[in-house]
């Protein structure tokens, strides 16, 4: 019985990775040729749907949101301009977060009281990041190449954070500073695996807010969800238990990515015929992915995720340098 479930899980993983690889490769071949109109037009939205479906299926098993995979993969392998990739990525990240966070808020796992001080700073810097990101691609003829190189470098930074940061399930908070005490940064939820209510207090809210200046900026500039940065800040700086931190991170994304999404829309950087299939693919895929992540999270998935991200980062940097005629 157990081996059958394991087999099914592996079939599922192979399908998810297969979807990502097939539709990424098709993007490469089409991007490499100028004859993009030689294939049926309906093929593009459908292939984008299946690519994001695959990402949505795999991302929850790797413990990440979809945006952090979508933006590097499409910018590296697909022929769209960076503006449309980032606009699409923001819409996906925000839809994913908006659909997942209500259930966490109702159980007490998502904590708005902790999220709000951080997002006020994060949203402001995300707006600045979105404006700068669009300015660079539009004011400079080679702007998209600068963004691609920066995205590649940021991906290595993200990978380093994911590999090096240790997740503490229940951090011990010995002292709550004055500011955090005034904000009343605490929470509680019922943890079924322990069979009891878990209570926690957060500290170092000021330092967390400072960290969110950078987190929000990167989210807005590159169209990423930034859950990869939210969770370590909440867990390691504020001392929030990891389960509450992951849930609160989703609440944060609903707010930090909202204003940048509107800015990209107001600049015409969101194309519905690309955005809608991508968002719907992610919407369905992440639901399947969340269900499968409950069953198991094989460690190998994380390595596959890392490999895909490293490859995408190298491709982004290569394409950026190639565009600048440096290679």
């Amino acid at each position, binding site marked *: 019985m157990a081996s059958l479930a394991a087999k099914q899980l592996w079939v599922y993983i192979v399908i998810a990775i297969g979807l990502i690889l097939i539709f990424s490769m098709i993007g490469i071949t089409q991007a490499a040729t100028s004859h993009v109109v030689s294939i049926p037009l309906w093929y593009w939205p459908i292939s984008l749907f299946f690519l994001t479906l695959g990402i949505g299926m795999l991302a929850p098993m790797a413990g990440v949101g979809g945006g952090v995979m979508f933006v590097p993969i499409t910018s590296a392998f697909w022929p*769209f301009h960076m503006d449309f990739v980032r606009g699409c990525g923001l819409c996906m990240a925000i839809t994913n977060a908006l659909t997942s966070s*209500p259930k966490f808020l109702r159980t007490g796992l998502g904590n*708005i009281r902790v999220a709000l001080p951080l997002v006020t700073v994060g949203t402001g810097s995300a707006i600045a990041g979105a404006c700068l990101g669009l300015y660079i691609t539009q004011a400079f003829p080679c702007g998209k190449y600068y963004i691609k190189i920066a995205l590649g470098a940021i991906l290595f930074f993200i990978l380093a954070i994911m590999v090096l940061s240790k997740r503490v399930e229940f951090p011990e908070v010995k002292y709550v500073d004055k500011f955090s005490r005034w904000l009343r940064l605490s929470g509680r939820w019922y943890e079924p695996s322990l069979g009891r209510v878990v209570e926690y207090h957060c500290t170092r809210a000021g330092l967390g807010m400072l960290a969110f200046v950078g987190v929000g900026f990167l989210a807005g500039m590159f169209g990423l969800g930034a859950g990869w940065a939210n969770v370590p800040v909440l867990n390691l700086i504020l001392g929030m238990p990891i389960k509450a931190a992951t849930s609160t991170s989703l609440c944060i994304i609903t707010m930090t990515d*909202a204003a940048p999404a*509107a*800015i990209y829309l107001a600049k015409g950087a969101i194309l519905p015929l690309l955005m809608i299939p991508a968002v719907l693919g992610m919407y369905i895929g992440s639901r399947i992915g969340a269900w499968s992540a409950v069953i198991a999270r094989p460690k190998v998935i994380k390595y596959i995720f890392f490999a895909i991200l490293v490859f995408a980062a190298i491709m982004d940097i290569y394409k950026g340098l190639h565009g600048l005629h440096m290679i």
Partner: protein
Amino acid sequence: MSSIEVKIEEKKIEEKKPPEAIEVPKEYRVYARVIEIMTGIAVAIMVLSLILYGSHALPPYVTLAEIVKYWKLASTKFWMILKGIRIHGYDWIFAHLAHADMVGMISVLFLATACFVGNVGLAIYAAMRRDVPLLMFAVIECIILLIGYLKPYIIL
């Protein structure tokens, strides 16, 4: 399964039930409900837009062929070459709502403003409870979001 085993099983299930003492603040539930409704509307609009496009009930403002031809261009150049317009703000979306793809754009507005409406709800509840920190940050967040939404009209 014997009756004793059944009783033990029932007791285990009873223990796993969350105690009723866990009372999630009402403003959290309100925020959750608001974003749930607005996301539901947004996704429904996306599906509607696809149906309208697929069934040819409404013509698209930009055809797929045009998108594929120019998608390598930056967004400002894309619109300038394709339609001869300079995109700035949201007026252009509302001006072309008779097109299937522009209907889909409305969904992004719902997604982007969901947290703003939720934060207004939070601020109201915080004011009623005289919860100063929550009220302060909910109001600040609303102002920042408003600046973000209205940025195209504030700074040219």
